[in-house]
Each structure stands twice: as C-alpha cells, then as structure tokens.
C-alpha cells in the first residue's frame, strides 16, 4: 500500500497546517473586523464598548477637508492610470515584438519602480524636480505616480501577451490590415481584460500611496497624506469610519479585478 498523501488517511482530525492556516486567516481579518466594529462605537476613547452609534459616519459626511483630499487622490490616480494604461500597453507590446540593442537595460529600468523602495524614488523625484525648478503641484504628483502605474500595467500586460496566439495578428496582416489596424483591432481587444486589471491594480496603489505624494504633491493634499497626518497622534474614531468605507470600496475593486483576471485567463 502506498503511504502517499498520509494526511488523507485521517480526515476527521484537522492537520496542524490547517489549524495554522485558520489562525493566519484570523490574523489577517481580525484587525479589519475590529476596526469596523469600533467605527460604530459611541465612545471616543478606549476599547470599551459604549453602545452602537452612527456619530462617526455623520461626522465624516460633514468633513469638507476629507472630501477635498479624496478629490485630489482621485484626480491623481485617474489621470496617472489613464495615461499609463496607454503608455504601459504600448511598452509591453513593443518589448514583446522587438529586439534591439539595450533592450535588457530598458527592461531593467522599467523594473526599477517596482524594486526600489518608494522612499528612494520619492526623494530622487523631489530632488530632480527641484533641480529643474519645476514647482510641486498636483501635476508633478501625477507625473510621479505615472512611473509606477506604467511599470505595473506593463508587467500585467506582458504576462498576458506571452499566452496569446501570435498567428492571429499575422493573419490580420496577411489579410491586408495595416500594423496599426492589426494592433487596435486584433491585439488590443485580446489584451483588454489584462489592461483593465493592470489599471485597477495601479489605481489602488496610487490611491494608497503616501510617500511619493508627500514628496511631489506640493500644495495638493491627497487622502493618504491627510489620513497619515491625523492618525500619527493616535486613534480617531471618524478615521475608523472612513477606513470601513475605503476598505469596502477596495474590496469591490479587488472583486472587479478578479473578474477581469478570470475572464482574461479564459479568453
């Protein structure tokens, strides 16, 4: 008898791996759940439960500063992602199609924003902008966010490109399509799910970014900077409420992205 997969021999007893996995799921979710529960707590201080209340959500709705910050964040993320989706896709297609001297250098540089810690990139961008005397604004933040959005979208699209059938594009060319037509009508539709999921990923990263905005946004005040400056000094119940709303929103985006990923795999 083969003693293979011996954990299946006693299905009644959960293995220690299963128990540890369960513990780790709790580890991942308990802080978020507790944050959610306490956003409904009447009490301002301490962990003691003082009754259910929507006070903090109401306070949130009247907080103009937070809404402006959310607006700044959305402007930065949407602009950066919109431009990057085009540039990143073109870059991925170009890298898949052409060989040229210095290609490995190009690829290496395109990885840098994913590898170098945010703080170093943020500092370098600030110093560079100062040296060419470009004043910091929402636009410099968008330019800086584009760097990592571009890199992530290119990586996601590249991995999808590898799984595509190259014959389809060649067939289009044989049938008289110009290379541009072949790109727009044959390649891009096949890549759309991957592009969208890359966009969602970089949108989330851009909305979450604290360091690069801190160094490049100047007078603009995106949401992570506003939140960070408030929670540095401790617990703020209205930020608990805000967190719950933002976490729900990102859960939605994650579900959307997973949908595109599955669609992209099946296409």
């Amino acid at each position: 008898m083969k003693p293979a997969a011996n954990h299946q021999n006693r299905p009644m007893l959960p293995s220690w791996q299963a128990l540890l996995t369960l513990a780790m799921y709790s580890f991942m979710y308990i802080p978020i759940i507790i944050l959610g529960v306490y956003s409904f707590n009447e009490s301002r201080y301490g962990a003691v439960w003082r009754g259910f209340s929507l006070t903090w959500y109401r306070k949130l709705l009247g907080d103009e500063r937070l809404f402006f910050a959310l607006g700044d964040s959305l402007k930065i993320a949407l602009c950066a992602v919109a431009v990057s989706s085009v540039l990143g896709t073109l870059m991925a297609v170009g890298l898949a199609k052409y060989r040229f001297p210095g290609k490995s250098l190009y690829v290496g540089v395109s990885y840098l924003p994913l590898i170098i810690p945010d703080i170093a990139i943020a500092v370098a961008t600030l110093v560079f902008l100062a040296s060419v005397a470009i004043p910091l604004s929402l636009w410099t933040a968008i330019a800086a966010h584009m760097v990592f959005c571009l890199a992530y979208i290119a990586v996601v699209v590249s991995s999808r490109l590898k799984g595509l059938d190259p014959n389809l594009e060649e067939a289009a060319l044989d049938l008289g399509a110009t290379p541009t037509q072949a790109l727009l009508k044959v390649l891009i539709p096949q890549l759309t799910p991957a592009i969208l999921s890359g966009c969602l990923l970089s949108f989330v990263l851009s909305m979450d970014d604290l360091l690069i905005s801190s160094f490049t946004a100047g007078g603009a005040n995106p949401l992570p900077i506003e939140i960070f400056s408030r929670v540095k000094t401790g617990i703020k119940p209205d930020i608990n409420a805000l967190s719950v709303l933002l976490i729900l929103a990102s859960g939605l985006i994650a579900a959307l992205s997973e949908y595109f990923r599955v669609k992209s795999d099946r296409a």
Partner: protein
Amino acid sequence: MERGIKRTAALTHIFNLATIQQKLRAIVRPLGLLGPSGVWLLLLVVLPTLLIAELSFVPGLRPGQAIEGYGLLNYIRILEPTYLRVLQRSATFAMGTTLLCLALGFPVAYWLAIMAPKRWRNLLLVLFILPLWTSSLLRTYAWITLLRPSGVINLVLSSVGLPTQGLMNTHWAVYIGMTYSFLPYMVLILYASLERLDLQLLEAAADLGANPRLAFWRVTVPQTLPGIAAGCLLVFVTSLGDFVVPTLLGGPTSMTLSRLIYNQFLGVARNWGFGSALSMVLILMVSLAIALLLKYGDRNPEIYS
C-alpha cells in the same frame, strides 16, 4: 536598350526607397511603442537616481543651495554609531519580518496548494491576499486599535486577569505590523511555487522508504527553493523600505533608514546631501539582496519574453 537601363535605374531607385522606408519603419514603430514610456522612465527614474547619486557626494547640501564641492563626508557620517545603529535596526526588522513571514507563510501556502479541497483553492487564496487590495496605511492604523495601552488586546488580557502589555511603540509592534502587511506576498509566491510541485516525486520518495519529514526536507523544500528565495526577497526588500509601520506602530524607538531619509527632506533635519547618501545606501542594500537572489535563487525570473 537605353530605355531599359533607365527603367532598371528607376526600379532600383524605387527599390532603394522601399528599403529605406522599410528601414525607417523598422525604427519608427518600436520607437512609437517604446519611446513614450522610455522618455518617462528616463526623466523620472534614471535622471533622478543619477542626480541623488551625485548629490550624495555633496556634504551638507541644504535645499536651494548651490553645489560647492564634492567629498565623501556624507558617507563617512553614516558610519557614526548613531546611524550605523539605524542601518542595523532596519536590516534586523527586514530580516526578522522575512523569517516570520516564511515560517508562518509556508504552512499556509502548503495547505492551500496541496492539502485544501481542490475546488476551493483559488477562492481561498484570493481570500488570503484580499487584504493587499486595501490601503496599507489603514491596515497599519487598524493595529493601533489593538495594540495601544487602552486597546483591544489589553482589554482582553485584563478581562481574563492577565497583566496588560505595553506593546505600542515597541519593536514587537513593528514586527507584528510588518508581518501582517507582507505575509500575503509570501503566501502568494510560495503558493505559485508549491502548486507546481510534482507530487509523484513525494510518492517516489515514500516508496523508497523516506518518511514524510525526510521527503519534505529532501524533495519539497529543494523543489520550491526558487519560490522561497523570491518570496523572501520580496518581503525583505519591501519591509526594508517600509515607512508607515515603523512610524505609526514603532514610535520614537524604531527609527529606521526610511524614516531617517524622510527626515532629511521633509522633517527637521533638511540635509539633502546626507539624505541622498542614505538613499543610495538603501538602494545598494536592495541591489545586494537582488544580486544574492539572482545568484542563488531562480535564475530566470524574466517576465518579459
């Protein structure tokens, strides 16, 4: 005859024009695809990195100041005990977090990839890495609610009669926060590696008389070593550069390299030269980790083919 020569000349001329056009197209098309991103990366990654490399050799450069001379003073200053301790602390945090993530993440990835019911695997994995989609700032903030002196952990401890713990603003808080933040990365990468594990090899090992523990260390671990190396690198690099966790959970006792760099530019210190030198050290540490991975880990981690 003459006409024939003329025609040939004209034809060769057209032919040449076509090859020139072809050649031109062969340059223009890649340029159109790769140019815009290339310019962006050049302007906002390459030039800035070269610039801080230069400024790191300018001692005591303040914002708005002109460069007056070069020297190694910034780097010599990093060797002072205060700053060496910061470097050491950053490396220890990153190393400790990596080991914690590996120790906790491997069994989870193993269970998900090999032991979990097949039809639930994907969903369970997605569920585990779902927190990565939410703001890392807010997930770190969530831990303040648990760790602070009047927080949930102490509430639970005191309600069962145990002494309360001062966890907030300690190194423990940093380890907890970083492990919490980066565990999903480790599980994701290890899962991808364990999923491809050839289970027949384990059966073969068992047939040849290896007990499960021996088979694990002699078959499973070597087979997944590239994944282990990649996961460790990712967690190490990310936690080495992390700013939010040490700032929010570690408090004043957890000064790290990234916080020190932040202070040189946005804090009270305002020393761009020293800050640039510290950034170069951070980039160097990251490059070193990657070089180690390339030497001992997966030899072709190419994503672009």
